[in-house]
């Protein structure tokens, strides 16, 4: 069956009265008197959907780690688990998955009691493409991407996320949105919530 996609050509009378112009003009005039649909960005900010790929964070240990993976990795690397600290087990899988591995600087340290923990975890956001491969690679659901999207900074140094900042983002995320079901954008009425409820001031501007 042939589906005709062209409109019927205009007849002469329709051309003389500019029918196509009138159609377009009537559409625009109807739109002109409707309510505007914009968000006044610096004054109003929408909350991005939960699966938004923004700045990274480290979820902290709070008893909701994916089991048995977390216990297995802790057992294997003899990780010291502290409540309220990063879940990172220094497996380096995020760095392996990364298309630009230089952006990760990960180091572990050995404590006097023989256990280990992460000591340095720097992510250079200048190199990051926000592809999320590292998040997929993380076996203990530690590294994740948050909804923090206002990432401008005055110096290049401010765009490096260190362990403390990552943990801060993680704690904030777990407080705000951990329980929220994952939705896609169009039916997300959470989107209508404004952005100001996050407690973070990121990145910190150093004069």
């Amino acid at each position, binding site marked *: 069956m042939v589906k005709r996609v062209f409109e019927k050509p205009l007849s002469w009378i329709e051309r003389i009265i500019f029918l196509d112009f009138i159609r377009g003009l009537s559409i*625009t005039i109807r739109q002109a008197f409707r309510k505007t649909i914009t968000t006044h960005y610096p004054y109003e900010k929408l909350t991005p959907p939960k699966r938004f790929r923004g700045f990274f964070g480290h979820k902290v240990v709070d008893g909701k780690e994916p089991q048995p993976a977390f216990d297995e990795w802790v057992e294997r690397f003899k990780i010291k688990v502290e409540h309220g600290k990063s879940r990172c087990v220094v497996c380096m899988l995020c760095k392996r998955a990364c298309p630009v591995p230089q952006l990760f600087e990960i180091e572990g340290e050995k404590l006097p009691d023989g256990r280990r923990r992460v000591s340095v975890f720097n992510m250079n956001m200048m190199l990051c493409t926000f592809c999320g491969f590292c998040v997929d690679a993380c076996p203990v659901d530690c590294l994740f991407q948050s909804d923090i999207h206002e990432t401008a900074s005055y110096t290049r140094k401010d765009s490096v996320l260190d362990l403390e900042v990552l943990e801060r983002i993680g704690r904030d995320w777990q407080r705000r949105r951990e329980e929220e079901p994952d939705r896609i954008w169009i039916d997300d009425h959470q989107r209508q919530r404004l952005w100001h409820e996050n407690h973070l001031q990121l990145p910190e501007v150093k004069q």
Partner: protein
Amino acid sequence: MEGLVIWLIVTFVKILVILGIVLGVGAYLTLVERKVAAHIQRRPGPMVVGWHGLLQPLADGLKLLTKEDLFPRYGNRFLYNLALVLALVPATLVFAVIPFGPEFEVFGVKVKPILTDVNIGLLLVFALGSMAVFAIALAGWASNSKYALIGSMRKAGIVISYEVVITFAAMGPLILAGTLSTYHIVQSQIEQGLWYVWLQPIAFVVYMFAMLAETGRVPFDIQEAEAELVTGFTVEYGGMKFGLFPLVEWYIEVLSLSAIAVVLFLGGWSPINIPFLGFVDPLFFLGPLSPFIWFILKVSLLFLFVLWLHWTLPRYRIDQITETAWKVMLPLTLLNILLTAILAPILWR
């Protein structure tokens, strides 16, 4: 002697008023355009500077004035600056022959609210309109840039084609009025109790299209063509020099040509017309101010209509534009003139 002094004072005041209105309103029309465009696209437009962005033109002007004055390498500096003058002066000069209202008396002096009521007013308008081609061609040539040159060539081609059309379109009302003076055209419309748009609908439509083409408005904004040519012949201009071209083209010229359209077809300062019966004035309570209000109302409605068209229609191709001018509009206007010239002496007067 005393008459000369009074005449000088009156003329000086008229010049000040017209320049103030034209340039001040021209600047504020940028805000009007941005607001209309925004609301058609369901945005609020400028909202931050002043109440609903009311001070935005001032902020824009300050920004443009404090910007660096760039000049392209190997450009021709004299022509580059001359183009600005040639763009601004003729466009503003058109307002010298636009009648804003009927003759009135202040302190015993009879004042016509028109700068010079020359008896070839309309001819002057079209002569000055053709001057715009020089500004555009010079701007494109002096910039030493391919984009600018292509844009100016396109614009020059359009202006030359549509200058012919607009002149022939204006000929119809001219035959009916029997005079070239803008003031007397309006006078004769009032005396005959008839807006010429009722007798010359074809000429009016063609005039409106030619006006869009002359001022570089959509659907004829081929010289600007953001997607292809950056901004056409203004691409090498910076700061206020850049701001001047759109100001002249999009606002002052549209304003002056709308005013001419009102004079020719919509009866100038006369109130609403019922053909062959007379005039109905819902604004009678304003007394002697009412004609001026009517004139301003008509011009601003026409201007808003142009904006409305601009933000609705897509752009035509260059060959379609010139084809429409030479193959459709010109024969239509010629036919119109022919019919008017044959029928007017028989049925008229």
